[in-house]
Structures are given as C-alpha cells and as structure tokens.
C-alpha cells in the first residue's frame, strides 16, 4: 500500500515553490551573463570616450630665414624652432631645468607635425605664424581634469609650474580640444597623444585578404568533394572527424605550426601579413568547410537528380545546379570565419607580428601588426593615456566585427531561399 501520510511528496505548495525557484535560477543565470556583457562593453566604451578628442597647443613659430633655408626644409632644425616658440611665449623662464619642463608641454612629435605643415604649405616660410601642434599626454590629462592638483607635487605627473603655464595658455586661448581623427590616420607611436591604428588596420586587412584568398577556395573545394563526390567509407569518416577536431585545436598551436613550418622550414618573412594570413587561413579552414557543407546539404537532392536525369555528368550537375544555390550560405560562413580571424591574436604573436611598427605596411611581405595585436601591445604600455587608446581600438575592432556579422545576416536574409 502506498503511504499517503508521507506529506513531503505531496506538499504541493512546497513543490510549487521549488518550481518557482528553479525558474528564477534560469532567469538569474541569463541575467548575470548579459549583465557581464553590458558591464564589459559599457566600461570599455566609457574608457574609450577619453580618446575621442585630443588636445592641441598653439605655438608662435618663427619661420624666418634665420631659422631655416626655404630650399632645404628637411634639414631645418624643427625641434629647435618649436622650443624657441615655447620660450618666446614664456619670456620669464630662464633656468635650464624650467626650460626643459616647458618643452614638455608640447608632444615630442610636435617638431614632425610642424615640418609636415610647413612642407605642405610652403607659403608659411619667412613669417611668424601661430601653428597648432599636439600637446603632451600629461597636458591632455590635466586639461581633462584627470590630474588631481590637490595631491602633493611629487605624486602627480604635472608640477605646480606646469599648471601655472597651462592655465595661462588656456586663458590666452592657446589650448584647444579637437576631434581625434589622427587616431584613425596615424601609425603606432611611443607617444600616446599621436599614436593611431591605421598601421594595425592595414596589417589586419592584408592578413585577412591572404586568409580569404587561401581559405575560401580550399574550404569550398573540400566541402564540395566531401559532400558531393567522396565515397562514403572509413577514409571520408576519418577526414570528417579530423576536420571537427581541427576546429577545436587551440589557436596558439596553429601559431606554433606557422613558426615551425612557414618561418622555419619555408623561410617566409617573419612578422609579415603573408605568414599571418596563412596561419589564419589554416585556422579558419575547418569553419569554412563545416559552413560550406551545411550550405550544400541544404540544397534539395532533386536539383542534382534532375540534372543527372537530363544527362549532365555529376560534375556538371553539382557545378551548374547545386553550387550556385549553395553560394550565399557559403559566403555567409566565409564572412563569419573572417570575423573570427579578425579577432584572433595568439597565433599572430607566435609568428612575430608583435613588433613596434610605425610605418603603414604597403605590401604583404613587410613587417606589420594586426588590430587585436595592437590592442594587446597598448594594453601593456605603462602610460595612462594608452589605456584609453586601447579601449578606443577595441571599439573599432568591435565595430568591424559587428559590421561583418550584420553583412552576413543580411546576406543570408536576402539571398537564402528555403525549400
């Protein structure tokens, strides 16, 4: 006989409470994960907002004949001209130590900026002009209120003297904040105030180009063979298992392969987007094959059978009737694979794409970095201003990833036909 007096099993109220709790755990788990996502993206966005604008300082420079020879602008003492300009604005400063401190208001790159401006506008030569150049990162931080003036002088990066100078410059309208377009048009630099991501972007673009050219045709070819032509036997099973496993191999192992094979055995140029793209291609290959096979599977067999019945050879049937229908699905998979490759960092570290490179790479065999590697490098930099740059670079990276995924989704919506 069943013991109905056992109330535990029949206490409906308690069981319903348990049901309710169980549901709550599920909602909580989802909420925690999404909250983390929001916190992370929000935190990075707010850090990045500091890099949106940059600070410039106006310097009266004397471009008269005493200072430079109009026929040989390259040889002109640009650094000296900038320093002289700064001295002229504060005639009261005479001590050597103070002068050195004064020069630090402008970015160390200011002389290069001045040279560029004058070279592009030769009409300036001969006169005295007010030129806007980059301010130093410390001045930038101070202007934005990121330096606490109440701290003891030794504990902050801006001295009392500097604060007085900055204040007087500000009052005379010689300091301005402008949108930081340079961040998108400059290469890397040791100075955070002028560092930009163009070099890393171009490096990423070259690498992704190489990656796509290699992995897209190979991936599609392999998928066509495995899905349409391969005999179903142990060998094709083995290839299938192999591809699934390859997709789960840690990315750093692909970097080791690239280091040993492409650099060690084949002797290809180190740090180059060529090798980076090749390693990324090997990594995205399994993703490509799996996506392309799924796209081929989605094509109804009647397409192929119809063509075969009309006398097409198997190759004709596949290439004329199955392949075009599966193409949008394959492209979608390829874009998603490319998005993964764009965010990949570890294998690129292995093949040396971590060097400090100022120049924008102009070919696939020149040394370069990639966008995620640049993020890694900047995240390590000690200057405080670099963490804002890092966050801004992350935003740019996320922007490209979102754009690529959106294109993939739209492409799928627009081109995909359901049978």
């Amino acid at each position, binding site marked *: 006989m069943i013991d109905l007096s056992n109330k535990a099993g029949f206490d409906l109220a308690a069981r319903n409470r348990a049901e309710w709790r169980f549901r709550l755990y599920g909602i*909580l788990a989802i909420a925690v994960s999404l909250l983390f996502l929001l916190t992370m993206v929000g*935190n990075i966005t707010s850090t990045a907002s500091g890099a949106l604008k940059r600070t410039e300082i106006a310097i009266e420079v004397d471009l008269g004949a005493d200072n430079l020879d109009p026929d040989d602008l390259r040889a002109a003492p640009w650094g000296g001209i900038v320093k002289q300009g700064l001295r002229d604005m504060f005639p009261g400063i005479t001590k050597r130590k103070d002068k050195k401190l004064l020069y630090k208001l402008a970015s160390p790159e200011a002389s290069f900026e001045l040279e560029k401006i004058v070279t592009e506008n030769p009409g300036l030569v001969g006169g005295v002009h007010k030129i806007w150049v980059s301010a130093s990162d410390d001045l930038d931080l101070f202007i934005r209120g990121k330096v606490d003036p109440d701290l003891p002088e030794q504990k902050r990066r801006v001295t009392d003297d500097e604060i007085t100078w900055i204040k007087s410059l500000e009052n005379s309208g010689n300091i301005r904040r402008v949108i930081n377009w340079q961040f998108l048009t400059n290469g890397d630099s040791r100075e955070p105030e002028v560092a930009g991501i163009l070099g890393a972007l171009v490096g990423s673009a070259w690498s992704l180009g190489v990656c796509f050219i290699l992995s897209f045709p190979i991936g599609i070819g392999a998928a*066509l063979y495995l899905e349409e032509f391969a005999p179903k036997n142990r060998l094709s099973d083995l290839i299938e298992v192999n591809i699934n496993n390859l997709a789960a191999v840690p990315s*750093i192992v692909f970097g080791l*392969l690239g280091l040993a094979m492409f650099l060690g055995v084949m002797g290809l140029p180190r740090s180059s987007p060529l090798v980076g793209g090749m390693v990324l291609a090997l990594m995205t290959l399994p993703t490509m094959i799996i996506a392309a096979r799924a796209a081929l599977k989605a094509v109804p067999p009647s397409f192929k059978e119809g063509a075969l019945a009309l006398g097409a050879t198997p190759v004709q049937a596949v290439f004329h009737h199955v392949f075009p229908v599966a193409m949008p699905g394959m492209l979608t998979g390829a874009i998603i694979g490319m998005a993964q490759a764009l965010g990949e960092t570890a294998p690129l570290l*292995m093949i040396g794409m971590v060097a400090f490179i100022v120049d924008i790479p102009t070919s696939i065999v020149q040394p370069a970095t990639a966008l995620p590697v640049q993020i890694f490098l900047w995240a390590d930099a000690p200057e405080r201003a670099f963490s804002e740059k890092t966050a801004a670079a992350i935003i740019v990276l996320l922007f490209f990833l979102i754009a690529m995924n959106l294109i993939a989704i739209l492409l799928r919506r627009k081109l995909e036909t359901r049978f």
Partner: protein
Amino acid sequence: MPSQNFDLTKHTRPKWLDRAIILLLSGFAAVAVLVTVGIVLSLIVESYEFFKRIPVREFLFGLKWSPQTAIRADQVGAEGAFGVIPLINGTLLISAIAMLVATPLGLTSAVYLSEYSSRRLRGWIKPALEILAGIPTVVYGFFAALTLAPFIRMTGGQFGLEIASESALAAGIAMGLMIVPLISSLSDDVINTVPQSLRDASYGLGATQSETIRRVILPAALPGIAGSLLLAMSRAIGETMIVLMAAGMAAKLSLNPLDAVTTITVQIVALLTGDQEFDSAKTLSAFALGLFLFMITLILNVFALGIVRKYQEQYD
C-alpha cells in the same frame, strides 16, 4: 514529322575533365588532413630536439619551471628547470575556476531557454548570449586585467584578504563568462533532442516541470551535456589571450585562487616572443609545451565529440 538534327556527340565532355576536377577537389580536402599532419609533425620534430636535451621524465614530473638561457656555458643551472607540473597546476586552477563559473550559468540558461522561454524570447536571448562568444578574447583580457582584477583586489582588501593583482580568480572569471555560450548552446541542442514522450510520461505521473527537468530530462541528456562540458574545458585549457593579459608569469605550485599562477599557453608565448635562438632548450621547450597542450585538448575533443555524436544517434 520535321526532324531536328541534334548531334549529341558534339556535346560530350571529355571524361578526363570531370576526373581532373574531382581530383582537384579531393586535393583541397586533403589539405585539411595535411594541416593536422603538419601540426603533429612540426610539434614532434621540435619536441624531439628538446627531449634530446631534457629527459621526458624530468619534463613531465619536474616540480620546477624556470627556463633560462645561459650567459656562460659553465654557469650553474645553465639549462634551467623544465618541469611542467607547476604549469599544469596553473592551467587547471584557472580552467577549474572558469568551469565553476560557466557550468551553472551555462546549464541553467540552457534549461531555461529550451524548457521555459517562449520562442520569441529565445530568439532574442540566444543570439545575445552568443555575442559573448563572438567578442575577441583580447577584449576579455583587457577587461580582466584593467577592471576586473583591480575590483577583486579592492573587494578582497576590504575583507582583509591579500589578493595578487594578477590573481587566477580574475582570469578564471573572465574566461568562464567567455565559455558560457559554448556550454549553453551545446546543452540547449542536446536537451532539445530528448524526446517529448519522456516529458509527457513524467507530467502524466504528476511531476511538476522542474521535477521533470531534474529527474528525467537532465539524466537523459547527461552524456551530451558531459560532452559539451568537456569541449568547454578543452577551450579553457587552450585559451591564451585572457591568461596572457590577466594571469601571472611566475610558475608556482598553488591551489589558492587568489594567487598569481601561470599557464602552459602563457609560457609558450613568453618563450617565443622577443629575440630567440631556434636551437636553445628554452625555445624548443615551447614546442614540447605545445605538443603537450595539443595532446590534452585532442584527447578531450575526441572524447567529447564522440560522446555527443553517439548521443545524437541514440535518439534519432
């Protein structure tokens, strides 16, 4: 009857063309296999060179990891110590923290999505969770190192705890959230393949929905769920950027999540970036570590994929 002269012989394709095309395609498929062969070969060749200098036993069971390049040949301890145990310790510690974070979050969200939520809600939440998997790991690393770690350190400080600024905890938590979608979407698929008849039978006996899930569905889906957890574990072990940016460099034996530990992947990067001679034990040891990492993840993957596959056949 008007006769149309179709000369069919004119349109025949040479047989060799088709064969050549298929051969070319099979060549592409072979590339995928060649990649695996390439990985195994290059790892084994370099590791062999390493094990000629350092005995395998010393590598596998050594308790000290401090690779150095000798400045002078006759220097004491010129070859450094290459015991992998502290690295395994660190790798497992961080992965375990990640799994502790990810398993409950991933599993409960999978259950909620597949059993409770409406189709519409699921259509929004699933892609939102998958964003977590789509964000590059270097971003997690940046967040873990610059925000999460200082936060944990500060919070611990208020309770009088001494927490390393590169604690295993910060790296583990960030990594855990990264693998949540991996667990939730695989487990979700698995739970969906459990036949409706099992649910109906359980409801028929008077069980509530949560009782059905806990006592019928989860046990039925257990092998598949175990597979998804193993895949997540393998992903955590092989993850590089988060630990490189948020975990430490010093190899030590410790099970304290508040300590700074280092992992296999961090050491591979540390050994191979910067100037390197291709022939020193220090550089070669990175390949031995790579081989070790490859084997561990391969075993986990083969095992996990096998379970998932077998499980799917069971209910088909």
